[in-house]
């Protein structure tokens, strides 16, 4: 465990962990993103992929990593990518402070799935979010502006990154937290209650 944060010692007294969720299609870089940020060993749930998805292992439950910022523990949850795991998106987004949706900028074939995931989550769960366009190290990729246009989002809500580089992932997190901060300043969003175990609205709607 992280030497700076002992959840048992701080139970009831220390800060409640905040939860951030990383979603997106298969191969968007969700696991890399969590690994690049976590200060503790990431608990993964990789299983052998039986479909041809361009890699050997795929996440079936979640990736879980932690980091501590100024004494405040942050839990990072990566979701599985395939549509069949949509129940996990809801489970993991419950009570989250923010959401990062990742999509590979060189794979326009995955954009419609990425948009479907994002809209499914954000139309039902009240969570501030940004979209991260990964694999910006490749020569032929979509720009974050064009991806923003496709998602119908303001360009400020879409950033480019390389999820394997931790500085790039940190920039993305900064961007998300700035957005969360803006929501809180607008006082339409109750900040300190957005921790774990406090579900917001949107579940079980038909």
């Amino acid at each position: 465990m992280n030497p700076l944060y002992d959840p048992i010692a701080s139970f009831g007294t220390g800060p409640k962990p905040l939860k951030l969720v990383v979603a997106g299609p298969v191969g968007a870089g969700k696991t890399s993103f969590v690994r690049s940020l976590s200060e503790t060993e990431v608990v993964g749930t990789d299983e052998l992929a039986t479909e041809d998805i361009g890699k050997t292992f795929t996440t079936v439950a979640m990736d879980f990593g932690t980091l501590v910022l100024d004494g405040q523990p942050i839990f990072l949850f990566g979701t599985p990518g395939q549509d069949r795991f949509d129940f996990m998106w809801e489970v993991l987004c419950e009570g989250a402070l923010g959401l990062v949706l990742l999509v590979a900028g060189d794979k326009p074939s995955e954009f419609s799935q990425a948009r479907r995931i994002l809209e499914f989550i954000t139309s039902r769960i009240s969570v501030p979010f940004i979209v991260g366009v990964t694999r910006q190290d490749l020569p032929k990729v979509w720009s974050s502006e064009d991806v923003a246009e496709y998602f119908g989002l303001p360009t400020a809500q879409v950033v480019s990154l390389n999820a394997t580089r931790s500085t790039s992932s940190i920039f993305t997190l900064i961007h998300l937290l700035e957005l969360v901060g803006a929501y809180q300043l607008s006082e339409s969003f109750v900040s300190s209650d957005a921790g774990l175990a406090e579900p917001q609205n949107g579940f079980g709607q038909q």
Partner: protein
Amino acid sequence: MSKQETLYQAINQLRASIPELRGAIVASSDGLAIAHSLSNGEDPNRVAAMAATALGLGKRISESLNAGSLTETSVSGTNAQIYLYAAGQKGVLAIVAPAGANIGLIHMEARETAKAVASIL
């Protein structure tokens, strides 16, 4: 006989030996339905994904607590209980039994079936 036929044979055999089972499904460990026999019209693809998620999580819990490699995990409700058995590295067998069913018997039969499934996969 194809792999799938053999799997169906294994599932049917299990259901025949424990008639009170409400359903059984074999899924790949990454959550794809391979063979199923569900009585109440549940979506096999969804059940398969959930079975893989539960088993995947169970494996990590088991490892983290030094419990060795996972053999099974369960979910109990007021009306039924669901048991998920690891079938080797590649698969999972899930069965749904009504509340109050004879668990000893179910485990005995289902563990055999899980072994058979593992060898087929």
